[in-house]
Structures are given as C-alpha cells and as structure tokens.
C-alpha cells in the first residue's frame, strides 16, 4: 500500500535538496545577524529586527510576490543578475531554495540569537585578556558556546523550509521536477480526482520529516543547557 511512485520520489528529493541548500546558505547570514542583534547597539536595530521577522507575519503569498517583483526575470535585481552574472531564480529550484531560505530565516535566527544572549559576556572578556582578538573571541568562545543554538536554529529552519508552500509556489510556480516540492505536489494531488492515496503518502512523509526535525531540535536545546553549565 505504501509504495512511493517515482514522481513522488522526485518531489521528496527536490524538497530535501531545496531545504538543505536553503538552510546551509542561510546559516552564515543567520549567525552574523543573530550576533549583531544580540551583541551590538546601532541605529535602526529595531527596524532590522522587524525586517528579519517580517516573513513570519506577512502572508507567504505576499513574500513570494515581493520576491517575484524584485528577483523575477523582469524584477529590478533579477534582471541585473540574469544579464550580468547569468543567475536566474525565477522558475528554478534555486528560486525555491531562495524562497524557503527567506521564509525560514526568522526561525533560524531566533534560537541562535537567544543562545548568544545567554552566553556570559565575562567569558568573552576573559578570553580577550588572554590575548584573543575579537574574531578569535568569536571563533573560540562565542560560537562554540552558541553551537547547540545554531544547530537548533538550523533544524527549525530546515523544517520550515521543507514545508514552505505559499511563497515558493508564488515565486517559482509548481513545475514537476524543477520546483514542485512535497507541499506543492500535495496541493496538485488533492486537486486531482484520484490523487488521494498519493497525497496521503506524501502527508505521511512530510509529517515524519517534521517530527524528526522537532525531536532533533529538542535534543540540541537540551545539550545547549548542559554545555553552558559545563557538564
């Protein structure tokens, strides 16, 4: 009964690829931004903070449409990228990864920010009196202590990315083999007269992936507390 068809496999593997790429590319930016928000005071900080959280509160279709306007083939940035660098996001799986990265960004940043805020700054001071330059303090004290938070953020971001639907379908449409992720495949299947069984299988798969991600995230959070208490 639970036989996954090649077309379904394509959607599952594409979803995994999109979510993995989105998470891996977004993570360095997420760490930089989380550090900035946790450790620095600057003009426009609350605006930046709001901007990071925007994809969480905007209707996903709005985010997708904004992406289309800016990064679509005729968008301001998109046209320039296509003409000068040959990079095209519209209707490509990379565009799906971009949409997923943007949508999952707030969920990625938050745990990282919280774990950086939880680090005792006096440890960073101690590190600098031992001769560590600011980047060494970050690399040897801040980042290792925040690592469980970074992993938790990555897991959450991944889970969000793999389930993303609205922004992705708006930005890159629903092309089997190129931009059709699990979510958009389910959407297509439930609009097809006898697609119920296939949709059901994909629902099970996406539930398993999401549950796995949540359990992993919980495990990382527990390790974080343990690590900060030095056991």
């Amino acid at each position, binding site marked *: 009964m639970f036989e996954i068809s090649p077309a379904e496999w394509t959607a599952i593997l594409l979803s995994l690829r999109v979510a993995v790429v989105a998470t891996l590319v977004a993570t360095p930016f997420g760490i930089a931004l989380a550090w900035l928000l946790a450790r620095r005071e600057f003009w426009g900080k609350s605006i930046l903070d709001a901007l990071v959280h925007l994809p969480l509160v905007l209707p996903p279709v709005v985010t997708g449409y904004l992406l289309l306007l800016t990064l679509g083939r005729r968008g301001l940035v998109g046209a320039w990228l296509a003409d000068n660098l040959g990079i095209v996001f519209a209707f490509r799986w990379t565009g799906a990864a971009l949409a997923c990265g943007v949508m999952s960004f707030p969920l990625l940043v938050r745990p990282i920010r919280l774990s950086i805020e939880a680090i005792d700054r006096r440890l960073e001071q101690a*590190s600098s009196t*031992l001769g560590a330059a*600011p980047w060494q303090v970050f690399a040897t004290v801040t980042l290792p202590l925040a690592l469980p938070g970074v992993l938790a953020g990555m897991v959450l971001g991944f889970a969000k990315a793999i389930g993303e639907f609205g922004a992705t379908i708006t930005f890159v449409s629903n092309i089997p083999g190129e931009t059709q992720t699990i979510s958009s495949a389910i959407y297509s299947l439930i609009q097809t007269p006898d697609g119920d069984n296939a949709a059901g299988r994909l629902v099970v798969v996406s539930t398993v992936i999401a549950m796995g991600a949540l359990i992993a995230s919980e495990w990382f959070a527990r390790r974080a507390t343990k*690590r900060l208490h*030095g056991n």
Partner: protein
Amino acid sequence: MLRVDVTKQLGEFSLEASFESQGRVTGLFGASGAGKTSLINMIAGLLRPDRGIIALDNETLDDTSAGVHVPPHRRRIGYVFQDARLFPHLDVRQNLDYGRRMNRLAEDQAQHARITDLLDIGHLLDRRPGQLSGGERQRVALGRALLSKPRLLLLDEPLGSLDESRKEEILPYLVRLRDEGIPMVYVSHDAAELRQLATQIVMLKRGRVTALGGVKVLT
C-alpha cells in the same frame, strides 16, 4: 613600573585615581564599592577611562588626550577574576593552553610542567570546569593567566568567593607566585591577605586614593 592617572564616571559613582607603583605586588585595598574592580578593569583595557593615562614599563596603554587605547588582547596583561571564568566548553588542559594558542606562542613544556606543579593541578587536566571545586577552579584560572606569559598579572579578589578553609588552601600558592617575580596588582578588601602578599599598598576609598606606601599603611 605601572603608572595610573585616570578619571571615570560610572553613573553616580566617580573614580579619580592616581598612583605609581614600583612594587612587585601592588595591593589595591578598599571596601567593596570603592572602585577597585573598575580600576583594574581599566588597567586590563576592559574599561576605557574618561580622561587620563595608564602606562606600563614605558609603554602607554591609555592616553585619552592622544587618543591612545591599546585593546585588552594586545596588552599582555593577565587577569584572574574573582569568579575564575574558566571556559565551560573546554577541559582544564585546553583552558590552560588557551592563552598560548591565542598569542601564537611556541609550546613550552617546561613552563607548563612548572606551573601545573606549582599550582598542583596536574591531576585535573582532563576535567571540565563544572567538575572542579571552587579552590581548584581558582588555581586553574591562575595557571591559565600565567601560561599566557603576561608582563603584569591582575588578581581581583581571587579568594573572594571562597570560604575560610579554601582560602587557606590557595594562599600558599599565591605566595609562591609572588616569589616567581611576575609583577602583580592584587585587589582585596582583606588587610590580612594583603599583609601576607603585597609589597606596596594603594588604598582606595569611594573612588579616591587615600593612602599610598608600604604595608604599614594598612594599620
């Protein structure tokens, strides 16, 4: 030689301190809230004076009128904090090695062996800070600061968070350290402690230096 002549406003509290010290162990004495920690944080470079000069062995570390501020990591001033501040994600061995790695110093087995012996921490090397007693933690913090090869060592109430019997446990190590010859600034509110360790006293009261001289100013 250490020369300090600084002013700093911290909320309601104003600190105005000026002293010179030739002594091997300068005891910074005063009640809590006298500004001792702020003062050595300025010597370490963690806090910037509003105005003034800090110089060590003819090198200017801070000079606000010339816009000079050497950041903490370039001062080569070791700091032992009251609460040790060992890195919880590193074991004792890695904590001890930290300063050497950051300063890219060559490995010095002899120095490492001598200091672990001196402080009696050789048997703790594989433990995490969370598995150490308060006294052990403080000894590791001492070793960690010493192994970064500082030219001045700041100690901020290193016995402050320990009970009486633990203090008795650490004090002999501090005396041994003094005899090593590294110049130290030792902060304490305990006159008895300073009488045992210091060679020169700077007495601080509500942000002002009220007495300077040998240990007899403590009486």
